[in-house]
């Protein structure tokens, strides 16, 4: 019953402050020619309404910080557009860009490295005013004192240095600095991760108060999901440069549609020792963003990946071992250097285990059906021949499905316009929730 939509084109009123279309930010390749770029942000679409808090969550390395920095034009996007109040800011240059930047500010994770230890708190907070030559110096000082008040510091803190403050207070200084030019939009990059719970609560309360007072719009980046749940109106879940699911907070937390969201949420330890929550086990780490998997970015770790029909009944553990086999081969293919190749050619011992050893490690105690066994024989032959690429191809030819061959698209999964990036929302497959129930 899910329906496909081209651009998650939810027509909201003119209340939309930020509109992001097919945004991509790639980092340069290692080699001069022909290298592969790191696809930190790989085509995302979303909107943020005025006065809203959009939470952005994901594991480290998923591209959430890059996305935040790109929105502020601290990174140059490779493709796509960012409309801020209707203007495409990716085209702004020089004076226009500087003027626009008044509207958008950033709070960083670590106040130690984002505050200059040699400047007084007053100078730090005043610096943006100096840069934009705002009114007279006297008025600037006055404004800074008011701001210190606003964020819960004392006016006489003007002449103190950052090291004289606690972590929570330093984060308040960082927040005061972002407010100087009365921005509309603030990117908060893990603003409370470095703080203790009780201090964290204070800073969160402050951020919420400021939002009400000044009508601010937040992009709140964090890996702590309970904080995000508390502060966000809507949440976007990122994985390997893609938004996997985006929608209203409570709905997303209580009834996650995307397999990744479901896995991520189930990994949070609840502060309740009696909870009998069944954890979804995600194995391994996210793949290298320089070599993202084909098709769906999450397919290598997905607990409910679509399987070929003839293998539907295959044992869970065998699937697990097959996945690991592919991972090992993939990793070897990339890490094998010229020296290794040479040693192999002349028959010296290499640091790699033989095909037989790998098979023993992965499949030894399992009852592998003949059909799979014969595929493994072919794979082994290719490994012995030293061609991991061919081995991977043999594996994929046998076990690949739509998850590996096609990129999914965003499907609307609820009335509120929440969308999820997964093949399982298509009519011909069972949806992720049913699939989870079946496989556990």
């Amino acid at each position, binding site marked *: 019953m899910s329906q496909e939509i081209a651009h998650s084109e939810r027509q909201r009123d003119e209340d939309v402050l930020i509109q992001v279309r097919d945004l991509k930010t790639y980092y340069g390749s290692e080699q001069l020619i022909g290298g592969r770029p790191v696809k930190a942000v790989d085509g995302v679409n979303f909107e943020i309404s005025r006065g809203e808090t959009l939470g952005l969550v994901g*594991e*480290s390395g998923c591209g959430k910080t890059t996305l935040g920095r790109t929105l502020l034009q601290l990174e140059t996007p490779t493709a796509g557009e960012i409309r801020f109040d209707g203007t495409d800011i990716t085209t702004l240059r020089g004076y226009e860009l500087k003027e626009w930047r008044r509207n958008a500010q950033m709070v960083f994770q670590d106040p130690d490295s984002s505050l200059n230890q040699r400047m007084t708190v007053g100078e730090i907070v005043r610096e943006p005013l100096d840069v934009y030559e705002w009114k007279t110096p006297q008025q600037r000082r006055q404004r800074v004192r008011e701001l210190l008040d606003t964020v819960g510091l004392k006016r006489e803190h003007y002449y103190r240095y950052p090291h004289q403050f*606690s972590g929570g207070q330093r984060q308040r200084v960082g927040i005061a600095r972002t407010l100087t030019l009365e921005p509309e939009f603030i990117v908060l990059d893990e603003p409370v991760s470095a703080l*203790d*719970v*009780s*201090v*964290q*609560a*204070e800073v*969160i*309360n402050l951020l*919420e108060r400021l939002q009400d007072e000044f009508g601010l719009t937040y992009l709140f980046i964090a*890996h*702590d*999901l*309970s*904080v995000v*749940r*508390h*502060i*966000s109106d809507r949440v976007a879940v990122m994985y390997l440069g893609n938004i996997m699911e985006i929608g209203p*907070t*409570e709905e997303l937390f209580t009834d996650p549609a995307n397999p990744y969201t479901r*896995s*991520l949420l189930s*990994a*949070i*330890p*609840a*502060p*309740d*020792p*009696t*909870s009998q929550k069944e*954890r979804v*086990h*995600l*194995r391994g*780490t996210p793949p290298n963003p320089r070599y993202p998997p084909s098709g769906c970015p999450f397919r290598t770790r997905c607990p409910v990946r679509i399987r070929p029909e003839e293998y539907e009944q295959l044992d869970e553990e065998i699937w697990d071992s097959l996945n*690991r086999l592919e*991972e*090992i081969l993939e*990793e*070897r293919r990339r*890490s094998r250097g010229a020296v290794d190749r040479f040693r192999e050619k002349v028959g010296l011992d290499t*640091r*790699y*285990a033989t095909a037989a*050893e*790998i098979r023993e*490690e*992965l499949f030894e105690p399992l009852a592998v059906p003949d059909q799979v066994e014969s595929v493994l024989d072919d794979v082994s032959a290719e490994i012995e021949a030293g061609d991991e690429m061919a081995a991977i191809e043999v594996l994929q030819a046998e076990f690949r499905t739509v998850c590996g061959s096609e990129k999914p698209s965003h499907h609307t999964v609820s009335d509120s316009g929440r969308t999820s990036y997964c093949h399982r929302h298509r009519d011909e497959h069972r949806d992720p929730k049913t699939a989870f129930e079946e496989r556990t």
Partner: protein
Amino acid sequence: MAVEQEVEPTASQSEAILEVRNLQTAFYTDRETIRAVDGVSFDVVPGRTVGIVGESGSGKSVTARSLMRLIDSPGQILQGSSIRFTERGTVRAFAEKFPKRTVDVGKLADKHDPAVLLERPDVDANPRTFGKRDAAEVGLAEILAAGYADDLGIIDDTDCVFVTEGSTDDPTAGFVEVTRTSGEAKRLMRGGRIGMIFQDPLTSLNPVYTVGNQIKESLRLHQGLRGKKATEEAATLLRAVGIPDARRRLKEYPHQFSGGMRQRAVIAMALACEPEVLICDEPTTALDVTIQAQILDLLEEVQEERDLGIIFITHDMGVIADITHRVNVMYAGEIVETAGVEQLFANPKHPYTQGLLRSIPGQQAGEKLETIDGQVPTPNEKATDCRFAPRCPKAFEDCEKVHPESVSVDEADVDHTAACLLYPEELSRADAVEYHRQRGADE
């Protein structure tokens, strides 16, 4: 004369393999003395996990480092502290290896009466130092362990193995006093009996050696394995902690591992020494939740397999709820509340614990979060008041004058204690204050 056993109310007492008693660790600088750990007591039981939770600066990590004897100058574990390793196999092994440093407490007790010893002017201790009211209740072993015997001159400086039952040749009960170990005994205890993993795995991994070499080093030092055998064992260990393609991984360097893999490798290194107790100091704080879940599962798995006693230090209440069986809540160097994990979450008694639990961003969006104003103080002197009083919403006048002692706060569970003047609940406030004053004055 029989040697007294510990009478502290711990249900698990008989099974404990590590008993920490009145641990005090201070740092002396020109400007001030910092009493980072100030009288901490708890037990570690095999197959169970005891959590230590608190804000930064509460003394969690110093406690862990004290157990590992990793406190360097200007830090010092103070006299009166005792860390007793009571696991029988260890006591036996140590008694055999260090016969000259082994003391038969029974024989010594025939010559010395603890009550008389405590009366001597050159001893700076009284029954309260050991949590007892009466000198008759204090055991000789306790006086020896806490380091007062040196003053008395009845044992040698280097003595660290104390046999309380059986002979020194065939001990059936006793303990190794960790605070008294030195040289070889200290090295065997650290790592070999008590292992530790740190928050940042890179601090425990040497970047210029392969992971395999580092695991093999542990195997050589603590199990005497070398060559092919060591390599085999190292690969088995890596597999056991869930690292695939172990043989290749052994030849890789730490930078080639991902964060979660590194923490797994460090756990493998700690396990290589086959410790009885594993201290985990915020091992998952730097990791993503998905990886954290993997590491917590792994720890539970190895705990079950090896019957490990785990001390788990964290500031994350979610992790505490997930992995621990018992929890100690620390504040400014003291344990302010201790209870079984379910008890603590269901029925927190100390105002600090209550505040800590309430400031966790809840399951519901919208409402304002409760906060605990102010910061953890740095304790410079022995406490004469409640260190939490300035931040406590329930504080009253006496909180600044009387130091709260740990009292049982739950009739159903004697093991649930809190150090707060509001308890014991059945007494009137004035009586409760008087009760704490009395117990404090004994000291």
